[in-house]
């Protein structure tokens, strides 16, 4: 077996050195009734070639997004990732190391995370960011729980423009952790007035920008309203590229930013692993969940980095920790950080402008399809269409024409008839004019 380094002769010699006669002796503590004598009913070992063939056959059954015109987004975006990113994250020293507990031999990961924290703080306009969460949805739930701790209140108001997965994950936590999650009605037109709903029990209001229907709003007034009521404003960003063009949550007065960083450096991966982002104000840092890297000096006075403020964390504080999170999304953070480093200020602002321009072109073209209208008054790179028919069936028919035509809102909010005909479509820098034309043509056919 290619991954095992011991030979039969080694095993014999080692058992002898240990002073036992057989391997079974080392499993003597296992209750007799639980000992498996034979092999489980699973296939035997296979070579690389066989495994590669079997898995490739499975992969080949899926419609690869990059092989067709694709307009699917809704929190997961298909951007172009420079080849250098995947090359660098595969370096064994990054890929096969653990959480940087031993800073003297983990400066690579630590410096990278310090840079990542800074990049995220800059992008979100916040003071500090952590070293990552599992994904945007769990980061959102953690943000709400942090707001609960900070305000000692137990009611969160979740916008109708917040991604339904984020709402559901937060609701699951609410049920078991014990707080109230008030879910506003889905709000394609972004007209809700959440300020009016804030009361003395409200720990936080959670909005998403751009919203899950694509709308872009300035939440500065809501921030003021929250703060006046002693509540916090949490802004979720799940298309991180938008931060290159849209006013930052920090500039709007957000207290916590929870987000999804997949757009930078990470592939679609059928939804995971992705990259939870978490940023806040300096004064709240000791209630933050997750790992934090801080600057310090070594015994020779040289600058270096360590994991810090671990008194927030489970391995030190156990049941009093701010969160139970341990393993997070380090390598996804690395991928994102490399991508952001490659882009730089000039590249990111242009990337954002390009996304916006492509989406604008797409919106103009699709609005010209008979029976189709654009719901949004504003958007960044995705927007909602109103179709004359249920969107799910339309998308299904488009797929048969080898076009991935976006996300029917009914997939995110099933059973709401008012939303049935809504379709969320996305454009990125990957979208070509030919893609747009193919989509418009196919949509015209499907709708006629």
């Amino acid at each position, binding site marked *: 077996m290619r991954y095992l380094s011991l030979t039969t002769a080694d095993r014999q010699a080692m058992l002898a050195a240990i002073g036992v006669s057989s391997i079974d002796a080392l499993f003597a503590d296992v209750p007799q009734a639980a000992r498996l004598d034979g092999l489980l009913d699973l296939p035997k070992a296979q070579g690389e070639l066989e495994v590669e063939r079997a898995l490739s056959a499975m992969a080949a059954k899926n419609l690869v997004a990059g*092989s067709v015109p694709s307009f699917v987004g809704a929190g997961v975006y298909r951007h172009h990732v420079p080849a250098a990113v995947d090359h660098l994250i595969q370096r064994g020293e990054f890929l096969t190391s653990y959480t940087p507990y031993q800073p003297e031999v983990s400066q690579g990961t630590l410096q990278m995370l310090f840079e990542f924290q800074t990049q995220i703080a800059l992008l979100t306009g916040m003071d500090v960011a952590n070293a990552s969460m599992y994904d945007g949805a769990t980061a959102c739930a953690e943000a709400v729980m942090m707001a609960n701790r900070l305000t000692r209140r137990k009611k969160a108001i979740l916008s109708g423009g917040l991604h339904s997965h984020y709402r559901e*994950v937060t609701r699951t936590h609410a049920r078991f952790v014990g707080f109230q999650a008030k879910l506003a009605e889905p709000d394609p037109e972004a007209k809700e007035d959440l300020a009016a709903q804030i009361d003395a029990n409200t720990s936080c209001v959670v909005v998403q920008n751009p919203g899950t229907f694509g709308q872009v709003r300035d939440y500065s007034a809501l921030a003021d309203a929250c703060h006046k009521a002693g509540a916090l404003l949490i802004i979720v960003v799940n298309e991180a590229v938008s931060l290159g063009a849209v006013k930052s949550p920090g500039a709007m007065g957000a207290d916590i930013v929870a987000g999804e960083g997949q757009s930078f450096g990470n592939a679609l991966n*059928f939804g995971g*692993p992705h990259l939870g982002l978490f940023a806040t104000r300096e004064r709240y840092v000791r209630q933050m969940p997750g790992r934090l890297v801080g600057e310090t000096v070594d015994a020779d006075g040289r600058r270096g980095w360590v994991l810090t403020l671990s008194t927030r964390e489970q391995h030190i504080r*156990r049941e009093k920790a701010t969160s139970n999170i341990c393993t997070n999304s380090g390598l996804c953070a690395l991928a994102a950080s490399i991508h952001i480093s490659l882009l730089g200020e000039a590249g990111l602002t242009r990337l954002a402008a390009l996304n916006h321009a492509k989406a604008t072109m797409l919106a103009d073209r699709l609005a010209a399809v008979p029976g189709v209208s654009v719901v949004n008054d504003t958007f960044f790179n995705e927007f909602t269409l109103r179709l004359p028919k249920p969107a799910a069936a339309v998308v299904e028919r488009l*797929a048969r024409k080898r076009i991935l035509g976006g996300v029917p809102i009914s997939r995110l909010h099933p059973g709401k008839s008012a939303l049935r005909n809504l379709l969320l479509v996305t454009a990125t820098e990957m979208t070509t004019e030919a893609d747009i034309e193919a989509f418009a043509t196919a949509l015209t056919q499907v709708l006629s």
Partner: protein
Amino acid sequence: MSDWSQAVSQFRTDPKSGGATVSGNRGLQIEEALIFEQDAPGRTGVDLPEPPAVKSRLGGVTREGPIGLPGLSEPQVVRHYTRLSQKNYAIDTGLYPLGSCTMKHNPRLNERMARLAGFADIHPLQPVSTVPGALELMDQLAHWLKTLTGMAAVALSPGAGAHGELCGIMCIRAALEARGEKRTRVLVPESAHGTNPATAAACGFTVDAIPANADGRVDVAALKAKLGPDVAALMLTNPNTCGLFERDIREIADAVHAAGAFFYCDGANFNAIVGRVRPADLGIDVMHINLHKTFSTPHGGGGPGSGPVVLAESLAPFAPTPWVVHGAKGFELIERAQGDARGSIGRLKGNHGQMGMFVRALSFMMSHGADGLRQVAEDAVLNANYLLAGLKDELTPAFPGTCMHEVLFDDHFLKDTGVSTLDFAKAMIDEGYHPMTMYFPLVVHGALLMEPTESESRDSLDAFIAVLRALAKRAKAGDAEYFHGCPRLAPRRRLDETLAARKPVLRWHPPQPDRQAAE
């Protein structure tokens, strides 16, 4: 530039501290500034076409002023991260005996498989009809996990072990609620990983610690004494964090069940028994599996992981969505707590879980097969015991007898030497080894927990033993000063963690204008 020497002043150190070069570099060990310190305005490592001119649809909600990101070229970025990587220890570079972390070899085949466009370039929200292969993969993975554990169901979505714990404890609470019970206490051994009590507390339970007995296992009598009608669950790690199999586990399970509670197992140490013992046969009701440990998805310097949770029949109805089920027309994806899944606790994570990790784990399982996985457990246990045998007269084993996949020492052998477990660990760094897990579990003094995994060859273990023996001898010989100064040969010497925590600097800030002028 009139004074060129400024160009290298950042990293120069006092010659006497080993930094005898002008540049601060030491041969191939090269210092590297922060990306923010390498900025040139306007420079970029990505070329994008000029965006077509369009009327903005942002509604005026536009960013004001620069973001502050530095501009670097691709050559600079590649060099930056290459140099950073070279400051890390990794499995690829040496033995990584971090106990409880199962730092085994990460096959490159798995990386290749996870990057197949049919897995990596599919969208979680594209029509389910276009991704039958993805659902098949998830179903296959579930089949392997259920067969290996003997459990009825598996929830794939948790993002890592701790997230799996949350999932498991939530399912237990949901089951209790379904029974109409409100139990408040969760029992957790003192030796447990920090995530266990943190999880129980996060779900609103009171954590009740149970002590270990003299041979490093749960004190069954003490446990039984704590059981009662308000106990929701026991969270037990098996093999436990002392590297020992809980030999009374079935008695424990029976007692827990008799008290109407559930038995949660922390499966972080599943590597010790995979293919030889099915957790279901031990009476376990629910267990998370760290795919990034037993099934070798790379740790990546801190994730991503994946923490599927296997569940007994009694807890299966509560598993979080999404579920992959066998429908009339092939695989189906239930995304909401309705229909068959109406008992589900609901969604715990965006989308459908860590697909990229699923592919890697399944590739690992298929490569090993039923036979290879059993051998994994045997070799992991054999390697740990070989370390124990090679070290037991020089270091002090925490408990008598053999161990499972990891071996625990305490710091008795360092008594009166002036050398602490930490000092000893830092000396290992100079010798080219990553230290073992230290000061955990909390049940022994100055713990040193070593897990070699099945990946290590005998030669590798022999060398490691030789080095640790020599270091132990050196400590006992009274050379404490040497240890206090370690490491001397790593990219950095000991770092001041107190300073970091006392005056947290958690991000880079542009130099202050006045400081700039002074420089």
